[in-house]
């Protein structure tokens, strides 16, 4: 039986978090708190539903990507919805969230479990997880966790890559100008 035909997936695929008709619904809050577009937040929610399916059906502990983990964290904050509706009515069992205990061994264990999670995703859903939501293990455990909460009223966010490219282009043009001026 493929994931699409499984009763659990059929229930999860239509699952919506939180009260209907709220002025700020779950997906809008997820987008706002992470600085995501509404479309991206909706895609993350789709992947969160798939992750929930994997936690029940993969046969091993499932480890989410950072984006999916953000959806999970927020869902845990909606505790009635999480424990009563999701775990009680849909999953039929508690689903606990367990952060790493830290240290190199835990890091390697989580890397391996993340790899197994991606493999199980491919096996159960018949396609590769989208790379912009399920990135490489390196990105997942060494880059994405460097995210921090920033008060936008007090700080600017300047992306490094365009600044570096702009600085490199400026230096190249300046050197070329100096060389041309010196030669001619």
């Amino acid at each position, binding site marked *: 039986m493929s994931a699409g035909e499984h009763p659990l997936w059929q229930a999860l695929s239509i699952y919506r978090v939180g009260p209907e008709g709220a002025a700020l619904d779950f997906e809008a809050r997820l987008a706002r708190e992470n600085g995501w577009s509404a479309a991206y937040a909706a895609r993350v929610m789709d992947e969160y539903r798939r992750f929930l399916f994997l936690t029940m059906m993969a046969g091993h*502990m499932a480890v989410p990507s950072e984006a999916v983990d953000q959806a999970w964290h927020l869902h845990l904050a909606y505790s009635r919805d999480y424990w009563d509706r999701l775990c009680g009515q849909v999953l039929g069992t508690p689903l606990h969230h367990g952060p790493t205990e830290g240290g190199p061994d835990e890091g390697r264990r989580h890397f391996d479990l993340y790899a197994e999670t991606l493999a199980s995703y491919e096996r159960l859903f018949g396609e590769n997880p989208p790379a912009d939501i399920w990135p490489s293990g390196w990105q997942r455990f060494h880059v994405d966790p460097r995210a921090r909460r920033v008060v936008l009223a007090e700080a600017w966010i300047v992306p490094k890559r365009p600044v570096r490219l702009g600085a490199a282009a400026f230096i190249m043009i300046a050197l070329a100008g100096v060389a041309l001026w010196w030669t001619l």
Partner: protein
Amino acid sequence: MNVLEWSGPAFLMAYVLAMVASVPISAILSRLARPSGRSQPLADPDSLAYLAGKNDRLADGVTTRMLASGAISFDGTAFTRGTGEASAASERAVLALPSPFRWKDIQAALKPEGAAIERRLEAGGLLLDAGERRRVAMISVAPLVLLLIVGGTKLLVGLSRGKPILFLAILLVITLVWALGRWASVDNQTRAGRAALKEARQKHDRLKRAPTTGETGLAVALFGTTVLAGSALSDFHRSRSSDGGGWSDGSSSSSSDSGCGGSSSGCGGCGGGGD
């Protein structure tokens, strides 16, 4: 319209534009000159590794597979015999080495296997032989050689007339280095070989992100040791990156304890499982 009679600035401007134009022209000529070979799927990890990166990649793939299976272990500098068994001729060649052994010993032990794979791939139409590769390389660098001839002639004209030639000389040196680099970088895959590698990489795209333990050998064969960054075999990746043998995504200089991944900051990963 004799370009040798152009003024210095006009010639320099045209030369730079011609250098820029030679990038796509060289790529197109290389593509047209490359023999098509014989299309076929390829699944053997050792053949894929050799096709992707010759002897170095073959050694990377075999070593990774053996580390993952426990056939050998690595302490950061030397390899020792483990408890696992060899499952391929390439692995038996490594296990025949007296323990402990180093990376260069593995490379030397796998050279005969690499030569055998190269002959198989050439006979199968997936790799060019030496003559075919030389012909493709000559055609690829032809636009740059033409630039060097025209630029060199203009340099001699400028010298004979007592004109400043420093900037043109710099451009000629850049062109020469570029031509030599282009010559050396022309690979020996046929079009069918490129297609087979591309197909295998697309089929196993997930392995580029995070391979499971049993998939690490194939992942390294296709994508290099960068796929091991952050994994249990990251020590091997770091050693290969530091000696310049592996292609790097910039992650190689960071240890697995840096940042937050798996460290005491506790933000590395969250696991969930039904109970």
